[in-house]
């Protein structure tokens, strides 16, 4: 019987440990008494339930033959990593570069990651999105989005 450590198995192990950790941390908050429950009682119950369900799920997975999801092909893995990276870039760079510049870069990069051909179309999509966000959020809804460099410092 083939047994392999898959990401899913790892996730269930993490959930089991997380449940135990929730229960352990809740312990320190104090249970009070059943008549006057403290702040730790409810999360302790949740932690125990999470650890229990996680452990049962993990045990049943380890008992059954390995049933792996077809792995992501290299193109899909690359797209997943790049898109996640673009999201992180947007978050980190937005306060510095401002929402307009970051949106232009993020949309262009996402479109290229998804293999939108040429440069004109990705640039047009990026420009259109930045304009739409400006009109909707900034101009119409008065939401204070970081302008970064555009604010003049």
């Amino acid at each position, binding site marked *: 019987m083939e047994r392999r450590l898959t*990401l*899913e198995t790892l*996730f269930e192990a993490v*959930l089991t440990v997380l*449940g135990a950790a*929730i229960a352990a*941390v*809740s312990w320190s*908050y104090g249970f009070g*008494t*059943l*008549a*006057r*429950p*403290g*702040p*730790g*009682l*409810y*999360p302790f119950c*949740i*932690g125990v*339930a*999470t650890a229990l*369900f*996680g452990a049962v*799920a993990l045990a*049943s997975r380890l008992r059954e033959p390995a049933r792996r*999801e077809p792995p*992501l092909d290299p193109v*899909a893995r690359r*797209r*997943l990593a790049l*898109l*996640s990276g*673009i*999201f992180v870039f*947007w*978050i980190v760079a*937005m*306060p510095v570069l401002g*929402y307009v510049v970051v*949106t232009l870069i*993020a949309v*262009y990069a*996402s*479109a290229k*990651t*998804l*293999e*939108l051909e040429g440069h004109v179309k990705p640039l047009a*999509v*990026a420009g*259109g*999105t930045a304009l*739409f*966000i400006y009109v909707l959020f900034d101009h119409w*809804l008065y*939401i*204070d989005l970081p302008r970064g460099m555009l604010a003049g410092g």
Partner: protein
Amino acid sequence: MEGLHLLLNGFASSFTAVNLLACFIGALIGTLVGVLPGLGPTATMALILPFTLPYGPTTGLIMMTGVWYGAMYGGSTTSILVNIPGEAASVVTCFDGYQMCRKGRAGPALALVASGSFIAGTIGLLGLQFFAPLLGNAALSFGPPEFLCFMIFAFVLLSNLSSEAPLKGALMITLGLFLSTVGINPMDSYPRFTFGSEKLMLGIDFLPIAMGLFGIAEILSIAVEKYVKPVVHQVRLRDLYPNGDEVRRSVKPMLRGSVLGFFVGLLPGPCTVISTFAAYSLEKRLSRHPEQFGHGAVEGVVAPESANNSAVMGSMVPLLTLGIPFAAPSAIMLAGLRMHNVEPGPMLFTTNPDVFWTFIAAMYVGNLMLLVLNLPLVGLFARVALIRPQILLPVISVLCLVGVYSVRNAMFDVWVMVIAGILGFFLRRWKYPVSPFIIGLVLGPTTENSLRQTLLMFQGDVAGIGDRPLAVALLALAVAFLVFRHWPWARGKGYALKMEEGKSL
């Protein structure tokens, strides 16, 4: 008579420019969301929720329901014309809808689905109008023990109906419940799981989690798939007329689907999806020609589409009367109403009856609006489905990022959304249901309050619940459901034999 009077007042309130516009925008956005891949109704409702805040609870509720409802309409268009369900509740429509399209009957299929959705919506609204105040009055006698037992009952059903593996559903519920405990506990002002972080003191907002699990995760899931350009069959307005035989065959399935969908909507879980499968299999069983199903049977198209529309209305009953959402979109609505300082539940009908009745009246209008919007514009909506993900996904991604940031001007929320999105992507691959996560997150505080109040009430003696017949009945129902679900002998010898033969019922 009082109900009629309140409904008339509701119509008077709903006929304001703002409410009508909210209804129209919600229905239009919902239809587009139903047609387009990338954002489902849940993520869209989470995205537009902050924009509804300046306009009050009724307008917000109307707009969000319009989105959910419109998505049910829109999803059928691509199912029939492109064989691609715009969202999960339209998967069943593909079975026979696309086959009708291949036989040149796409127009009648679309017309009958739109009419069926309209009839189902009206029946669902009548059901909501009738059952909600009734249940609301009954729920006035609910105390903390009844609410606690109802939560347990709901969680048992939710974990079992949301996924093939109930353990996965249960794990998602507990994760959601855990996240709801992060921050300062309002009952005793005690900070939990904050680890000294000021950002965590405020708790983890449900909006970034919902946007991540339903929006970003969907974007990533579509991005890693190979894109195949769909072939859209064009339909003109004059092609929409069904023939007499199609109309005759559709009437009873529409009515059956509507009634069935409404009652499935009352159950926890992905009610709109379950209702379509239930309606389809019911029609197949009742049909004199079950062999036609899967080859373009009109009953297999109209019944599921009617069911998913009335299920939306059915799921509003527990939300509005008990304040307990049974599906992810209604969890968003609950959170939205709370943001508007309206607490749905038994008291809604006494404290904010105008919210309920204006909502009912506006949905009658919205239902009509969707019919008028969908039939003439069906060709346009079908063409929208041709927008390539290479263009659509980058735009939606940035809209999600900016949308979540704009709620509290907090980059922390955007981090939460992105992490939830990446987690959601893997959860989908591993077939973990994400709706229970959101429902657990939204219901967490209510569950904790009910538990602690129950313990206080009985001075720590949980056996006191035995003196509350309704609470006992709810617990008994939960146990009975578990026994029925997991022990085949409880369903009779025939079932056990079939299971042994590997036949699924």
